[in-house]
């Protein structure tokens, strides 16, 4: 879907919500805030700075993950409170159920205790989900999760490859999200999802192409709901990398793909490509400032907050591992550095 096709609904039910979100947007981290965080001498100082910037860091907290999860929870609670459409709360909280499902399934099949990697931010509690995964009892689970679990188990039984678990759950997740967004008839959010899926597929494609994996994996790993189908990627699969960049010129991702490929060739790393894709999505989300009424600014705030939290996590992990600030900076979206 092209940007010119996006229309903002004049949904005045969101007048209060948008007013509140505009105030919250002024508290999102700026370049200056990230610059201060990057300048922090060590991990404890970075945590102290984070507290100054409004994150819920208390004196006794030594770990960063609970802090980030609390901030994430606050953003989701805000969505719960401000959303006038149940479907929106469902898709944006359900994403955590899919994440937890993937973690628990991988834990089950690898025999490892991975519950620590779950995030209790979804609509189904991690304990209930764990019970369902371990007992293979899907009776209590919502239909989409039950389907995702059954699909993942079937795919894993066939191939015994742990990646199959991720792919099967991701496919169900994006399928479910596009169905709900289609029902809500919100062109901004529908386009956001298409962009997210397309960029995810482009990254997967370039990774497979770079590693020279076979075409079977391409068909397995492509997510549904984007504007570029598996056929498109299959057709261009044999093209040299330089030509590949040109095949995307007619899409909104042309410049990003070209830059991503040149960075990939120069640095032999996918970090820049990830960053470029994030930049594109952040720029897209910032278009929500054109809407005075509607759910778009509320969702855009939630997603921008998630980008911010992810960037903060990258800085803290870097500080914890004593990485030089230039190395950390490379991983942050250009919006923040």
């Amino acid at each position: 879907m092209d940007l010119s096709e996006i229309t903002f609904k004049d949904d005045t039910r969101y007048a209060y919500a948008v007013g509140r979100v505009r105030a919250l947007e002024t508290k999102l981290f700026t370049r200056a805030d990230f610059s201060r965080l990057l300048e922090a001498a060590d991990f404890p100082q970075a945590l102290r700075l984070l507290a100054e910037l409004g994150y819920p860091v208390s004196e006794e907290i030594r770990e960063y993950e609970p802090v980030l999860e609390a901030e994430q929870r606050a953003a989701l609670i805000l969505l719960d409170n401000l959303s006038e459409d149940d479907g929106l709360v469902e898709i944006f909280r359900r994403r955590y159920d899919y994440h937890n499902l993937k973690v628990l399934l991988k834990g089950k099949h690898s025999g490892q205790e991975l519950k620590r990697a779950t995030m209790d931010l979804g609509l189904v509690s991690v304990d209930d989900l764990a019970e369902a995964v371990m007992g293979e009892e899907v009776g209590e689970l919502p239909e989409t999760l039950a389907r995702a679990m059954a699909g993942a188990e079937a795919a894993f039984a066939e191939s015994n490859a742990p990646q199959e678990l991720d792919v099967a759950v991701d496919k169900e997740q994006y399928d479910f999200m596009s169905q709900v967004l289609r029902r809500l008839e919100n062109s901004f959010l529908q386009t956001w999802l298409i962009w997210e899926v397309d960029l995810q597929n482009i990254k997967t494609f370039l990774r497979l192409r770079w590693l020279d994996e076979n075409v079977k994996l391409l068909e397995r790993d492509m997510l549904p709901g984007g504007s570029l189908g598996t056929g498109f990627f299959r057709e261009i699969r044999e093209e040299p990398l330089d030509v590949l960049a040109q095949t995307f010129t007619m899409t909104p991702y042309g410049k990003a793909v070209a830059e991503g490929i040149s960075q990939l060739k120069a640095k032999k790393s996918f970090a820049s490509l990830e960053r470029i894709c994030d930049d594109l999505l952040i720029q897209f989300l910032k278009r929500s400032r054109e809407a005075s009424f509607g759910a778009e600014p509320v969702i855009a705030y939630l997603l921008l907050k998630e980008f911010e939290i992810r960037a903060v996590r990258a800085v803290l992990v870097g500080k914890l591992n004593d990485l030089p600030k230039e190395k950390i900076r490379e991983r942050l979206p250009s919006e923040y550095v």
Partner: protein
Amino acid sequence: MARLKRISGCSVALFAVLVMATPAFAQAGSESSASWFRFGPVTLSIAGAAIAVILSGIGSAVGIGYAGRASLGAMSEGTKDFAKYLMLTALPGTQGIYGFVAAFLVLLWSGIMAGDTAALTVDKGWQFFCASLPVAFAGLFSAIQQGKVCASGVNMTTKQPTEVGKALVLGVFVEFYAVLGLLITILLLISIRG
């Protein structure tokens, strides 16, 4: 938009009922028309005054609702620019006042307020009714749109507090058309009064 259509639809229906119910129509129609259904000049003038207040009042209430909710949203996150938000929220309220002024003039100049309606004819009643329409409809639509402009102005002011002046100026542009409506209503009332 659906709400606007509903309000417009109700107004047209009210207008049609009044036309059907005036003595000229009632007499031309069936003999069995009930007498309570026949509106005279006083009723028409009162209907004019009422419609001016009701429609412009609805417009102002809806418009203030939009701007007010946006202001409350911003202030609930600790934004301390109450004075700026107050100005933007109050702006769509003027249409309601215009409707009130027009209704007051209709009641005064038709003689209803003084209890002297002997000289009021059905024609005059219709004239008072029609003279009330410009302020009623201009007030209704402009207040709702002004509320949207002001809510956007509130959102802009939250991010750029120094730009409140620009938000107010753009809000006032919408006000202009309500003022024109009031002006025409007053001119019509003056000419009816003679």
